[in-house]
């Protein structure tokens, strides 16, 4: 079947979609957006979290056909999404998302020289920058889902308590960090967001 929907502000279309395919599969394998991760495919880890019409969901549990005509934001569009939210308030539709990783791109990958990780030419959402700064990224496989979930929580609740953060992120498993640096990152993003709002 054919499925059409909006991803990160751009209309996308996939043909010959098998009816049992998930939104996650279509994003990763048909739309070149592998940022959402396939860690459990049963809604028990949160690594595939995307926003479906603004609501965080596990994309592995959404049938591709259910997304017809709807709006999806993935980690690839998070920076634009956050920027437009900051500019206009509320949910914004994002600019064209970046494309996924082709083999050629993967072959060319190399860590950037020196400390270019702190920004440079890549615009990041505050939550993304906070994850880097706080050391919340290790293997990084849980990171995209956590970022989407944490960003949405800060949108709803700009001044979360620790218990609020833990509750909001209780659907996202991380196996590397023990979550402490993730807590630090969300607190940091909340603090920076608060400072920015006061300015």
């Amino acid at each position: 079947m054919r499925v059409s929907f909006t991803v990160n502000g751009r209309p996308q279309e996939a043909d010959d979609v098998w009816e049992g395919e998930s939104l996650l599969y279509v994003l990763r394998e048909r739309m070149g957006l592998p940022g959402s991760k396939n860690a459990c495919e049963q809604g028990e880890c949160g690594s595939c979290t995307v926003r479906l019409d603004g609501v965080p969901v596990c994309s592995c549990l959404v049938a591709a056909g259910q997304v017809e005509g709807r709006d999806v934001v993935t980690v690839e569009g998070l920076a634009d999404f956050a920027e437009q939210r900051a500019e206009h308030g509320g949910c914004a539709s994002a600019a064209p998302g970046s494309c996924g990783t082709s083999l050629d791109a993967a072959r060319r990958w190399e860590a950037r020289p020196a400390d270019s990780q702190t920004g440079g030419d890549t615009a990041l959402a505050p939550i993304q920058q906070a994850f880097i700064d706080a050391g919340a990224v290790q293997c990084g496989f849980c990171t995209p889902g956590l970022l989407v979930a944490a960003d949405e929580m800060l949108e709803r609740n700009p001044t979360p308590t620790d218990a609020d953060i833990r509750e909001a992120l209780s659907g996202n498993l991380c196996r590397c960090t023990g979550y402490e640096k993730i807590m630090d990152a969300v607190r940091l993003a909340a603090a920076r967001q608060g400072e920015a709002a006061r300015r």
Partner: protein
Amino acid sequence: MTTDTTAATATGTRGPVTASAPVGTPTKVTQGAGTKGGIGESTLRPDGTLKVTGEFAYSSDMWHEDMLWGQILRSPVAHARILSIDTGEALATPGVYAVLTYDDLPTAVKNYGLEIQDTPVLAHGRVRHHGEPVAIVAADHPETARRAAAKIKVEYRELPVVTDEASATAPGAPLLHEDRDDHHIGHVSHPNIVHRQPIVRGDVEAARRRADHIVEGEYTFGMQDQAFLGPESGLAVPAEDGGVDLYVATQWLHSDLRQIAPVLGLPEDKVRMTLSGVGGAFGGREDLSMQIHACLLALRTGKPVKIVYNRFESFFGHVHRHPAKLHYEHGATKDGKLTHMKCRIVLDGGAYASASPAVVGNAASLAVGPYVLEDVDIEAIALYSNNPPCGAMRGFGAVQACFAYEAQMDKLADAVGMDRVEFRQLNAMSQGTLMPTGQRVDSPAPVAELLRRVKAMPMPPEQQWLAAGEQADVRQLPGGLSNTTHGEGVVRGVGYAVGIKNVGFSEGFDDYSTARVRMEVVGGEPVATVHTAMAEVGQGGVTVHAQIARTELGVAQVTIQPADTQVGSAGSTSASRQTYVTGGAVKNACELVREQVLEIGRRRFGTYHPAWATAELLLEGGKVVTDGGEVLADLVDVLEDEAVEVEEEWRHRPTEAFDLRTGQGNGHVQYSFAAHRAVVEVDTELGLVKVVELACAQDVGKALNPLSVIGQIQGGTTQGLGIAVMEEIIVDPKTAKVRNPSFTDYLIPTILDTPTIPVDVLELADDHAPYGLRGIGEAPTLSSTPAVLAAIRNATGLDLNRTPVRPEHLTNQS
């Protein structure tokens, strides 16, 4: 560009989470002491931006025009003869390109294995465990591949299963491997025992007579899964030269290569491996998973083949942590001095050997824990059984032992009537202590100090669930969101534990790494390029390598090349060894590059300044400077258009095998120590546990990147928490089938199960190691589990001898 470390330390952490000031001899670093972004700083990950934007290419993200999907058909039973396999219908399915079985393997090499090549690439006439690969399929869509695999008709005749020591060694027990010819068969008492390592020292019987208190215990350790989040996956691309390019997530490229190439019948240079993004490892990627299968399908079909396990398959796709039965006896005098220890550790290695022999060596040689004990009688064995294969996982044999000996320490302290921490401190080993293997501990072993530090940390406040207001915040109570208690039945407990882990590969293994470092001028700036085959699995090796290059070469710009087999082996990302060994190799190669650069400088500019010949020269801030700080030349001018490149292997000092009868030998390179204090709150009526805090103190020798060090300690601590209260692969003892291969029923800690983890980092240099550093990744996984168990015992008064502890154990309802 600068590193934003201020942001990282101002993140509202509560409690002592920062690295403490170094105690003891600080490592002397002259070269690079003034270089920004060098060792000792919390520089940020070079792959951080890619990972937060979703652009980082993990092995499951690989994609290729025209690629096929591979699917593995696995055995639904644990032990059976395969009477027949019919692939006809599967092969006839539209969209299917290949269906391969054992008969299709191209060469005489049909097995693989880390140490013993006993694992069939595809089952031959027999399956030995639930989930063993039987056939593989390549098709144009994963669903097509799945449907085709389901159409393969395999006729099994089930055989009796071996599931524990009794059934493995019973008269007439089925043999897992009838024709063993490995080098362990000569010293084991039964062919279903993979390896046996005794360690005998002193006179246990005489020492036993001096004991005023003797404590015995029988302990059970459940089977833990690494549960890395990125499932096994990769892409094999057939090449025009008849070889194959393999992009895969692994812990050790060259070990994979050594096992893959012979099965494919290709020379190693025609199997070109590149490390893809690795979604965690923890030991679970030390063995092969989909590598050979993808290559076979790619070479057969002439098309790129991608294989991605789902979570269900991942539980069958890698080895697990050995479950264990441990019997311990300790004695102590009435003054609290340990007299002797006897123990027997039985590890279940499952159907294939994997890393079992080395795990046995570790369990035996570290069975005593970080204590002074001169009279010991230790035996560790690993079984072959029809249970899932077990091998490497963070802590590697030392975890199981620590759980048992730390429970024993508490029992002994209680028997003697001493404080549990003081009892441990009284018996703690220190630098100079002889291990039961006869090896002298020749670097700092601050066991008593770590215990002191962890005990001195402030206690978390009582009843934090009331802090928010009048009503109980269930999120802070046992049971969490499930709303099982508002404080009723909740009792707090505190427990302590400390552990010892070896660092690096032991027992005479030639444990080396290779680094290629290049220095040249790019865009008017001196740039260092570091190329190793080190598998970055999340631990932060890429960050540290850049720091080392900056420190050693005085440059700001460092490029880390992707890891591949175009450079020599880096050894495994395991055994807490990469910063030590590959870090050591990078340091060594940088030093050689530096010498060559200075040589060029002397050649070009030596006549202009006498200091070129007389002073100790350093590379700092892109310049050649004297140790007095005088600038002699810019590196840009020294190098001009010349590039200096060095590729060198680097080894730590050698180790020895353990004697097969006495266990004597200088088997280990370095030891690593951590201590934990666990504070738990237990709902004693429902048997539910909330870990409130897990404080850790660890000696790291030298923190090359403090932020990463703390991240490793917190992550390891949490995996230990998982084993304590929830994580276990449950295998049916009657059928040897796995009952919970999913994230629905194999539970790992969520953020609501994980406490605050204050970390106190001690830096006592090991003079034998680069920069004095100590491998750190595993030690925190050891003591975390027994600390939590001790705290639960403290809260409940129960004698808990197994882990994980489940609600039914705490309520006497098992």
